């Protein structure tokens, strides 16, 4: 057992995957000699060689496109897209190619690709280093979308994603790379040191895809969330002193509907929290699923707490961010009666 940041946990996961399977190959901008702009691949080229960990041209289309070809050959590529905001030039290769090749070739070819990408805001990244585009990918059939919220989960989920025989979009909430975040941007940053979820087992283990975690058990209201917002939601519930249940979805597709359904049926109230823009976001899908399955158990309408339908602003970052005040307002509304 070691105390790790999320970055260290991700690095450890890739290292273990590369050691266990000679077909695991890492590629991306600055991932090789330098080890990535966030250091997620630090030391991997020195250990596993330049044929398996290498820098690429600045071409997301090319990175995903060659990853598809490598997967067709039989490798298990783990491309990094330096920021999720940069993923769009690679979208056609993901949506029309990686996600559909198993289907369109009737299983002649499979696409065991894990696209890692730092995402989300709260780091003063402005509109091109802060986006949460998970809703673009959850809408695409044939892709799995995973978002860890702790070092323990990051390692186990990433190992599971790399082993998975279908393409996985692995979004890493970069605000919590180096420590959890309670949403109070004006307080000193905290680190993963001493945090129980940062105790990471040595060696190989997996956290299965498609299984949510109950980040905080409670009886009065369910908060469905993922990534950075798990910590913000948990802190908010505790500060309010309410008996809220925080569900960390961990995998958005395939979704753990059973955990969601049993929680909402128990509490009768549901809030969905995500950082991404609101309209057509993954929260809309969650709200639809909850009302389809739990309508007669609901005591109040479902509320969404999200970012606004604007680009992520630089100077007004904390006004945009769905922080403790916005969550508390939604909780108050849903718990009014």
């Amino acid at each position: 057992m070691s105390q790790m940041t999320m970055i260290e946990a991700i690095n450890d996961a890739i290292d273990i995957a590369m050691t266990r399977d000679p077909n695991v190959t890492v590629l991306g901008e600055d991932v090789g000699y330098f080890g990535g702009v966030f250091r997620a691949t630090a030391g991997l080229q020195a250990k596993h060689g330049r044929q398996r960990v290498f820098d690429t041209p600045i071409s997301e289309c090319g990175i995903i496109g060659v990853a598809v070809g490598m997967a067709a050959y039989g490798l298990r590529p783990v491309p990094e897209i330096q920021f999720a905001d940069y993923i769009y030039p690679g979208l056609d290769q993901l949506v029309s190619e990686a996600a559909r090749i198993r289907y369109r070739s009737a299983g002649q070819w499979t696409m065991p690709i894990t696209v890692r990408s730092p995402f989300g805001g709260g780091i003063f990244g402005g509109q091109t280093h802060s986006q949460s585009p998970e809703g673009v990918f959850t809408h695409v059939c044939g892709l799995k979308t995973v978002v860890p919220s702790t070092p323990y989960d990051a390692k186990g989920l990433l190992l599971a994603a790399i082993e998975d025989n279908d393409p996985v979009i692995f979004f890493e909430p970069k605000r919590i790379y180096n420590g959890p975040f309670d949403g109070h941007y004006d307080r000193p940053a905290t680190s993963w040191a001493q945090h129980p979820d940062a105790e990471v087992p040595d060696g190989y283990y997996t956290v299965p895809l498609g299984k949510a975690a109950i980040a905080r058990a409670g009886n009065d209201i369910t908060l469905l969330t993922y990534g950075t917002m798990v910590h913000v939601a948990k802190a908010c519930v505790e500060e309010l002193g309410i008996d809220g249940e925080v569900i960390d979805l961990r995998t958005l597709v395939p979704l753990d509907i059973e955990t969601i359904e049993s929680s909402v049926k128990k509490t009768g109230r549901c809030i969905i929290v995500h950082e991404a823009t609101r309209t057509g976001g993954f929260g809309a899908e969650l709200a639809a699923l909850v009302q389809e399955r739990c309508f007669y158990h609901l005591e109040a309408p479902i509320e969404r707490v999200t970012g606004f339908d604007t680009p992520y602003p630089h100077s007004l970052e904390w006004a945009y961010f769905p922080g403790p005040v916005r969550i508390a307002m939604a909780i108050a509304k849903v718990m009014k009666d």
Partner: protein
Amino acid sequence: MHKPNHPALALHIPEPKQRPGDAPDFSEVVIPYAGKLARPDTAAPASALRDYPYTLIRVLDDRARAVGPWDPKLRPETYIGLLRHMLLTRTFDDRMFRAQRQGKTSFYVKSLGEEAVACAAALALDRDDMCFPSYRQQGILIARGWPLVEMVNQIYSNQGDLLKGRQLPVMYSAREAGFFSISGNLATQMPQAVGWAMASAAKGDTKIAAAWCGEGSTAEGDFHSACTFATVYHVPVIINIVNNQWAISSYSGFAGGDETTFAARALGYGIAGLRVDGNDPLAVYAATAWAAERARTNHGATIIEHFTYRAEGHSTSDDPNAYRAAKTAAQWPLGDPIERLKAHLIGLGVWDEAQHEALAAELVQHVKTAQKEAEANGILGHGLLQPLASMFDDVFETQPWHLREQANALEAENALRAAKEAR
């Protein structure tokens, strides 16, 4: 605000020289003599090859004799085999085009006039080299001996279709034939081929990859990403641009073809670039063999522009007479690839008209037999479809709950429809 001392800017919109009603005119096409061009060493640096993108590799001269250093000098039996593949491709195209007109399928794409580009290239590659084709290289499958009946099953999307009726006709996928699943999204296969070849190289394998796209889709970003990766990692890949001069109704000027050649794209990337007479099967073979040897000996990628002419419409869905001069293919100065190879073989004294007619008749029967066999599995939209539940297979390796629910909902919907129809 227009400044009085500056000329007004003008936007150039390319326009082909002839449109419907005009007489075809190819007088501006520059055709060097066959046999004059040197064949460089396959290990030559790209910087030593800068003239090649601006000329045309030709082996068969105007009297169909093989001349010059690019003459591959293969055995006559090999050429007869190539002729057979090309003629079978043409025969198959003809029958399938008619099948579409007869309502047996929704769509078809012929490769008339471009048979050499696929068949001669396939001959120059090893059987286990990986092909990432576009939708007009059915000749590769035929040259590699993929059963015609599998192709027809796919075109009919019937119960025998190995792709379970999921793909538009001609979007084949044949792993056993080293033929990657065709995408309708253009040029996506180019970086994929590069990635496949990178993997082969990283593993110390001996196999190379080849990809094909049209001149029109070289405008896609994917093409340029592919070229960048190909040069950066010295990738053992052949990047084929089939310049048939038409992208549906848009002539090659809309892909930049008025200003330079497509092979010349190679210069900016520092890749070897060859431009070849795509209607000369021996030249296509020779250029492909050169590029394959270059790739196989770790000297990197080659871009080959196959200069050819799309003899008919883009597909069954368009009428070329609506956008280009009539009967242009007959005027194409580089002729027809099958006629040229046939004349070459007759000139060698190994082939004659009677043999050719017999072969043509045999191939028609061959295609008819395959077509009949496939029709027993159904034609598009007439019963014998894939089972409903198969729609939900292969989205993922294992079916998640939401797809299971949707499959069940479809079953219920279908049962209700059946019950209504029974009343």
